[in-house]
């Protein structure tokens, strides 16, 4: 792998930037791999990278039906934070946050991770109480957090309507200053390039059509390019996890929903942080390019079509205009949907399955992007050893039978 550097940029300028090395190969599938990852999004590519880099498993394939990072990795609103309430999830997301902080150097790829701060607004007394509790829990878990009152919020976010005359007056906010945003595509491409350099085969345009089993144990995947053998198989297919589970012969406690997002025309810098509100229900940040990146809740019905309905868009923009009247005349440029696999307790499933040697990493729902490095790291550890990583253990599928749920719904600033 040709390393990227300022000097390299200078050197390539002399040849009109026409001789950059390809970022990854386009290999032919080998007959057998030690580990097959199904799904070439951020989480899958991160898993492959950490398998090769940290856990010494280099005979790895990533099988992707479309192109790398073309699903939810390309469709999210790029927010990164780790201010979750419960110990299990706070530790998992904080693990990811620590990896984010060194990721660009680690991958030799600028993922444009910008710790500009994430605000979660409070509009009711109950919001304030819940937020105070969450900030305290965060601090006990080593996650930074502060609780602000309305006056401090108005000082820090001057363009936010903090007056008493709004329908849902702002009473305060939490802020995680280490939170922020990252360039979503760069995350997928950075992991892909670094994994490829370590010998991982990235197989695009390869759709898994079934799992081959021998005596009930998975031994590989059937694809549109033929059978590919794998000693262990990890499935990281987000919205399509329910479909994958069906192919493997079991069910998951998941429902797939469209989650929409939209961006405005590029405007001059106005929002220098990430601002989220659960009660009014919307979140917004501004990309480095200048467009406002906006999202809110899922469409309520099940869907795999990567698009949603207009009422959801209207609801989203109502929330944004309620909080930021200054933006009421900004025009929206593009709108899209991704398919999120929501679990009953709003926490992921990182787990063994009823099929031996088949592992699933799914159920990240509306908030998987922020966890990309941590998710990949713990899943890689689990696939390498055949035993779940300690941070992943509480997220086993059997919690929906034992009742040991990690109830982050509403608890964790989750804006569903």
């Amino acid at each position, binding site marked *: 792998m040709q390393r990227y550097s300022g000097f390299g940029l200078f050197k390539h300028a002399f040849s009109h930037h026409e001789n950059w090395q390809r970022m990854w190969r386009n290999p032919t599938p080998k007959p057998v791999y030690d580990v097959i990852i199904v799904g070439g999004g951020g989480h899958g590519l991160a898993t492959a990278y950490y398998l090769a880099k940290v856990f010494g498993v280099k005979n790895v394939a990533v099988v992707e039906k479309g192109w790398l990072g073309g699903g939810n990795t390309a469709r999210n609103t790029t927010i990164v934070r780790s201010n979750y309430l419960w110990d299990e999830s706070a530790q998992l997301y904080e693990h990811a946050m620590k990896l984010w902080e060194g990721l660009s150097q680690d991958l030799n790829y600028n993922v444009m991770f910008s710790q500009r701060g994430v605000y979660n607004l409070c509009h009711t007394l109950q919001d304030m109480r819940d937020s105070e509790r969450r900030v305290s829990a965060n601090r006990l878990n080593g996650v930074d957090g502060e609780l602000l009152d309305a006056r401090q919020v108005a000082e820090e976010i001057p363009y936010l309507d903090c007056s008493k005359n709004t329908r849902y007056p702002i009473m305060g906010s939490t802020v995680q200053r280490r939170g922020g945003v990252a360039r979503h595509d760069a995350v997928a491409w950075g992991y892909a390039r670094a994994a490829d350099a370590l010998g991982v085969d990235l197989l695009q345009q390869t759709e898994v059509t079934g799992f081959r089993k021998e005596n009930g144990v998975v031994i590989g995947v059937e694809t549109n390019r033929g059978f590919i053998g794998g000693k262990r198989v990890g499935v990281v297919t987000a919205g399509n996890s329910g479909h994958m589970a*069906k192919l493997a012969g079991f069910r*998951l406690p998941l429902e*797939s929903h469209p989650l929409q997002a939209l961006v405005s025309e590029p405007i001059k810098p106005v929002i220098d942080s990430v601002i989220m509100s659960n009660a009014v229900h919307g979140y917004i940040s501004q990309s480095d390019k200048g467009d406002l990146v906006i999202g809110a809740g899922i469409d309520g019905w099940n*869907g795999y*079509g990567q698009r949603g309905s207009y*009422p959801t868009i209207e609801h989203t923009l109502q929330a944004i205009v309620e909080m930021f009247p200054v933006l009421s005349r900004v025009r929206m440029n593009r709108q899209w949907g991704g398919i999120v696999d929501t679990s009953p307790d709003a926490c992921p499933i990182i787990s063994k399955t009823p099929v031996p040697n088949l592992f699933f990493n799914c159920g990240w729902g509306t908030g998987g992007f922020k966890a990309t490095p941590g998710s990949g790291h713990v899943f890689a550890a689990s696939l390498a050893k055949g035993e779940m990583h300690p941070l992943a253990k509480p997220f086993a599928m059997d919690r929906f039978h034992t009742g040991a749920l990690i109830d982050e719904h509403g608890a964790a600033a989750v804006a569903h």
Partner: protein
Amino acid sequence: MLNIFCPHCGETRSEEEFHAHGQAHIVRPENPAECSDEEWGDYIFFRDNPRGIHHELWVHSGGCRKFFNATRHTVTYEIYETYKIGEKPSVTEASVAAAKASAQGVTA
């Protein structure tokens, strides 16, 4: 935007009047106390979540406030039918597969 025919009102109305409640035809165990943890967990949490034909429960929350079922495709979002609680769907995964096969001139 989905336009949904409410079988109680007899009218096609906009999606905004309705609320989706997920998979339909889930039967509550007769004796919950006798269920194993697996059976109860399956009943409460586990869903088919198909990519294709989906039978689902809806409520006309902004209208007559009655529940009904719908058969909908989860990729095209096409609604094939809506029917009252207690009735059986006429469009199923099997019936669509059969119709597709006959349209292509394939005989079983």
